[in-house]
C-alpha cells in the first residue's frame, strides 16, 4: 500500500523528466495494436476488478465469498512469488514466513481487541501464567499494526535477502535456504506456545478494527478489501513489469553477470523484488486472518509455502495474471475437489504439479502466446514487454 502512495507522489515530479513523458515519441507511437499491447493488460485488470468487486459479491453466497476472499489473500502472496520467481528467477520456497508475519501481526491485534483494553489474550492464561510479553503491547494500536504488517516483512526480508542475495546464493541453494526458513519459522511458532499460541495458532477473534466479524456486511467488506488489494497490486505489478526496473529484473534473471557489467549490482535489483514480494505476502496474510478467523503454523510452514507456489507454477510464473488465477484455481480446487473426491484430490494435485512443470513450465498463461503464434501476427516480432511473454525464467545451467 505504501508502494502505491509513494509512486503516485512521485508522478508529478517525474513529469519534468523527458523520459517519463507519455509514449508519443516516434518509434513508440505506432499502431493501435501496439497501444492495445500496452494497455490491454489494463483492460484485463479492469475486467478482473469488475468480476471480483461487482459480480462476485452480488452473486456468490457468503460462504463462497469468504472462500474467494481467502483465495484473494493467497493470490496476493502468489503475485509476490510471481515477481520474485517468475521475473526475478528467485525460487522462494518460504513465502509462508512473510505471509505469517502479516497474518500474526493482524491476529495479535485482533486478539488484543478481543481481550479488551488492558486485557490479556485468553490463551496466555490457558497455557501460561497470564502475563503478556511486552512485545505484544504495541499491537493494541491499529495504526501500529498496519505499519508493522508492511514494515516487519520489509525489514526481515531485507536483512535475510541482504545476507542471502548479496552473498550470491542462487538457484537451488536459495530455494532450499528459504524453505529452511519456513520450517524454522513454523517450528519457532510452535515452540513459543505461551507467546504465539503454538500449534493452535491464534483464533477466536470477535472484531477487526472495531467491526463485528460476524456481521455479514463486515464480512462482505473484508472480502472487498482482499479483492480490492488484488486489483491494486495487479496495477502495481503491471506498472512495475513495464517499467525499466521490470526489464532490468528480467535481464538480471536471464544474465546476472552481464547486468553486473552494465554497472548494476544484481543483488540490489533482486533484493528489491524479494522485499516487495515479502511485503505482498505479508499483506496477503493480514487480510487472510480476519476472513479465515484463524492463523496457525500449518498456514505458514514449508508445505503451505509450496501450496502458494503451486498456484504460481500452474498459472504461469512470469505472467501478470497467472499467479492470481493460479492461486484462485488451486484454492478453489482444494476446497471443492476435496469435497467431492477427498482422497483423490492429493493425487490430482500431485499429478497436476508434475504435468504442468514438466510439460508447461510457463504455466497455463504460457498457452496463450503459443496459441496466438499459430496465426501470423503483425506484432509478433515485438519483443514482449508485457505479460504474456513466454517464460524464460530458467536459465540454462551448466551441467
Amino acid at each position, binding site marked *: 500500500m505504501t508502494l502505491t502512495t509513494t509512486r503516485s507522489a512521485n508522478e508529478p515530479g517525474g513529469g519534468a523528466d523527458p523520459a517519463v513523458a507519455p509514449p508519443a515519441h516516434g518509434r513508440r507511437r505506432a499502431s493501435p495494436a501496439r497501444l492495445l499491447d500496452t494497455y490491454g493488460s489494463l483492460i484485463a485488470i479492469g475486467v478482473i476488478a469488475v468480476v471480483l468487486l461487482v459480480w462476485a459479491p452480488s452473486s456468490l453466497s457468503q460462504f463462497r465469498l469468504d472462500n474467494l476472499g481467502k483465495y484473494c489473500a493467497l493470490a496476493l502472496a502468489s503475485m509476490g512469488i510471481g515477481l520474485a520467481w517468475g521475473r526475478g528467477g528467485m*525460487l522462494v520456497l518460504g513465502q509462508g514466513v512473510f505471509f505469517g508475519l502479516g497474518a500474526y501481526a493482524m491476529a495479535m491485534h485482533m486478539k488484543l481487541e478481543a481481550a479488551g483494553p488492558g486485557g490479556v489474550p485468553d490463551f496466555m492464561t490457558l497455557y501460561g501464567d497470564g502475563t503478556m510479553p511486552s512485545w505484544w503491547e504495541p499491537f493494541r494500536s491499529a495504526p501500529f499494526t498496519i505499519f508493522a504488517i508492511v514494515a516487519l516483512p520489509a525489514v526481515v526480508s531485507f536483512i535475510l535477502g541482504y*545476507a*542471502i542475495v548479496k*552473498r*550470491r*546464493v*542462487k*538457484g*537451488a*541453494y536459495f*530455494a*532450499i*535456504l528459504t*524453505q*529452511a*526458513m519456513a*520450517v*524454522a519459522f513454523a*517450528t*519457532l511458532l*510452535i*515452540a513459543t506456545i505461551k507467546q504465539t499460541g503454538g500449534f493452535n495458532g491464534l483464533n477466536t477473534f470477535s472484531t477487526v478494527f472495531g467491526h463485528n466479524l460476524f456481521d455479514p456486511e463486515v464480512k462482505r467488506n473484508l472480502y472487498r478489501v482482499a479483492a480490492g488489494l488484488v486489483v491494486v497490486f495487479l496495477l502495481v505489478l503491471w506498472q512495475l513489469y513495464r517499467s525499466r526496473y521490470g526489464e532490468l529484473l528480467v535481464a538480471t534473471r536471464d544474465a546476472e553477470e552481464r547486468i553486473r557489467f552494465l554497472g548494476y549490482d544484481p543483488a540490489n535489483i533482486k533484493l528489491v523484488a524479494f522485499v516487495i514480494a515479502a511485503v505482498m505476502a505479508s499483506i496477503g496474510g493480514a487480510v487472510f486472518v480476519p476472513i479465515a478467523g484463524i492463523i496457525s503454523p500449518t498456514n505458514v510452514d*514449508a*508445505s503451505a509455502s*509450496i501450496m502458494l*507456489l503451486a498456484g504460481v*507454477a500452474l498459472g504461469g510464473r512470469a505472467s501478470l495474471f497467472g499467479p492470481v488465477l493460479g492461486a484462485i484455481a488451486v484454492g478453489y480446487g482444494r476446497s471443492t475437489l476435496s469435497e467431492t473426491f477427498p*482422497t483423490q484430490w*492429493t*493425487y490430482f*494435485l*500431485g*499429478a*497436476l*504439479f*508434475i504435468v504442468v*512443470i*514438466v510439460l508447461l*513450465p510457463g504455466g497455463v498463461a504460457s498457452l496463450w502466446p503459443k496459441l496466438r503464434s499459430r496465426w501470423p501476427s503483425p506484432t509478433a516480432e515485438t519483443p514482449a514487454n508485457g505479460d504474456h511473454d513466454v517464460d524464460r525464467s*530458467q536459465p*540454462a*545451467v*551448466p*551441467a
Partner: protein
Amino acid sequence: MAALGLTLTFGQMGVINMANGEFLMVGAYVAYLTQQVITAVDLSIVFALPMAFVVAGLLGLLLEVSVIQWMYQRPLDTLLATVGVSLVLQQLAQDVFGAQGDPVAAPGWLDGRISVFGYEWPHRQLFTIVLALVALGALNAVLKYSSFGRQIRATVQNRQLAETLGVSTRNVDRITFFLGSGLAGVGGVAIALISGTNPTLGTAYIIPAFLVVVVGGVGQLKGTVLAAWAVGVATAFLTDWISGSMAQVIAFALVVIFLTIRPQGLFTVRTRSLA
C-alpha cells in the same frame, strides 16, 4: 543416510529430488513388509536392507526415466516436479498401508547396549552409524575405483566431453539416480528401526537432509557425513540447554548463518558452481 543419497543425486547430477524423503519412507515400508514375510526378526532386517535398496532404487529409476530426464536443464523445476511426486507417493502410502504407522521390530541382536567412550551406546544407534559408514565406504569405493565411478565423475565434470569419449551419459544418469534413491531406501530401514513407519515420515527428514548436503559441500561425501554429524551433535547439545523445539530452530538458524557466510559449504568443489 538420506543425506548421502541426496548428495549423490544433487551433487553429482545437479538434480534436486524432493521426493528423496519419500524413498526413505519406501525403505521403511520395505522393512515392514519384509518383516511380514520373513517373520524371523533377526533375519528379516538382513533381507530388508538389500530389498529396500533395490525397491527404492527402482522407484528412483522410474522417476528419472518418467520425469527427471526431461528437465536436466531446469534444476528448479525438477525441485518442484519432485514435490508433486512426493505428494503422490505419500498419499499412495496412506492408501496402501493406512494412515496408521506400522511397527518394525528390531532384531534381538540390536537390543543391547555397549559401552564405548564411557557412554552407553544402544546397539541400534551403533548399527545406524555402522550402516552409514559402510554405505559411505562402498560409495566412495565405487566412485573412486570402479570404471563406472570414473564415468560418473567424468560426466559431472564435463558432460559433453564424456559423451564424446563414449560414455553413455544417459546410463550414468540413470544409474546414479538408482544409487542415490537406493541409499535413501537403506536409510529408510534404519529410520524404521528407530521410529517405525508412517506415510509422512519422509517430510520430516528431507529438509534437514538438504541442509546437511549443502553445509557439507555439494558433491562432497566426507563433507556430508561431517555435516550430518555436526548438525546432529549441535542439536543434541542444544537440547540439553533449551527445549527441543527451540534447539531445532537454533540449529536451523545456525545452518542458515553458516551458509550465508560460506555458501559453498565446508568442502568446496574446485569446478564451476553447480547452481
